[in-house]
């Protein structure tokens, strides 16, 4: 799969990401690095432990990375989840948002694997 096709599947914009990060090599480097970042696992553990401060921060990091890498679907999903934890324990049921984010995150990782 080309990088252009990849961005079609993750809700991103190839032209925009190249404009912002300068060239394909860099974008590929950062996408592969993204796969190794610990924030997603930290977030899941923190939610499990109801450590909302850490959960907020980790989801916020994922949102920031997703925005920079132009992973549109994940950026939107992580942002919605992140905001429910900004002030501590969520006041809404976060399960649907968490499921959605897990799906988008997995989708991003799977698609990164498919890039030529």
């Amino acid at each position, binding site marked *: 799969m080309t990088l252009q096709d990849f961005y079609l599947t993750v809700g991103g914009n190839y032209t925009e990401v190249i404009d912002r*990060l300068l060239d394909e090599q*860099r974008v590929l480097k950062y996408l592969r690095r993204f796969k190794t970042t610990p924030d997603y696992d930290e977030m899941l553990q923190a939610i499990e432990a109801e450590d909302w401060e850490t959960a907020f921060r980790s989801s*916020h990091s994922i949102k920031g990375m997703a925005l*920079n890498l132009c992973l549109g679907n994940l950026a939107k999903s992580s942002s919605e989840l992140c905001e429910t934890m900004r002030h501590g324990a969520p006041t809404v049921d976060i399960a649907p948002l968490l499921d959605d984010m897990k799906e988008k995150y997995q989708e991003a990782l799977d698609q990164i694997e498919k890039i030529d």
Partner: protein
Amino acid sequence: MARTALIVDDSNMNREILMDMLRDDYEVLEACNGEDAIESIMQNQDSLAVVLLDIVMPKMNGIDVLTLLCARGLVDRFPILIITSEEGEEIERSCLTLGATDFVRKPFNTGLVRQRVKNAVSLYEYKNALEERVQEQIKTLRDQADELERKNRRLKKRNDEAMELLSSIVEARSMESGQHVKRVKTYTEILARQIMVSCPEYGLTEYTVKQMASASAMHDVGKISVPDALLNKPGKLSSEEFDEMKRHTLYGAKILDETQRMWDKTNYGLCRDICMYHHERWDGKGYPEGLSGESIPISAQIVAFADCYDALTTDRVYRKAFSTDIAFQMIIHGECGQYNPKLMECFIACRESFAKTANSYK
């Protein structure tokens, strides 16, 4: 030149993107939380050219970092660019209020951020260089002011010495005690200081009091031009001789006029007024011009008291010294001519100081 950039972000990947962007231009340092950022800033503050700061971070967030840097006066030393995925305007306002130079939201365009960093660094380098130059110039000005002050003090000392030298020549030629000039200076200073306190309308200051006392040394310098035979004549002077003796006031003013370029303007004016007018009296019966009232310069009015009191309380070739009490009574009862009533009040207030001075020379 400071060429270190510090990137503060808890996301490895974001730090990497920013590092790639800056590593050609800077030596790049990293911190993954606020506490590490503060430590790194304190260690590298002299070489830091720029700080890129995230907001949401563990241990200490970006706002707390900014607040601490602001409290330590470091936000003016190098530019701080906030790079965050926070969205509200409120957070941007807080950062800028605390001293952040710029606020960039994720996703950012690396080319634009690089340019923003470059602009901010240039601006700070220019600002810091200007501040350094201003500090250097302030130091130079201070040094010059100190040097001027030193020269001024030396000049004043030389002036005083020159005045005392001239006065001592006069004294050496006359039969006076040799301490007349010193005593007149002391009386002048005592009376002038009393007038400074009691009669503020004359505008005297501690500085002018000192200047007047120094200038009083010159009051009889014109006697240099009076012939020896007349100056040291025992017994009473004839009317013609007394007229010649009176001219020492004019001779003194002439000496000052002829050496005017040697004196600073204030000193010249004071010395000349004192030489010329210290024998004038309030009722116009003095000499050489018969001036009256406030048309007699205040400096000359003061020295007139000092000169008269000293003449009365020291031995003359034709009489012994009067006691300080008698001299005091003679002056206040007008036996030595009329004086300014306001100055007379001050003289009365100085009675003990004058007597003490007179007695200290006996």
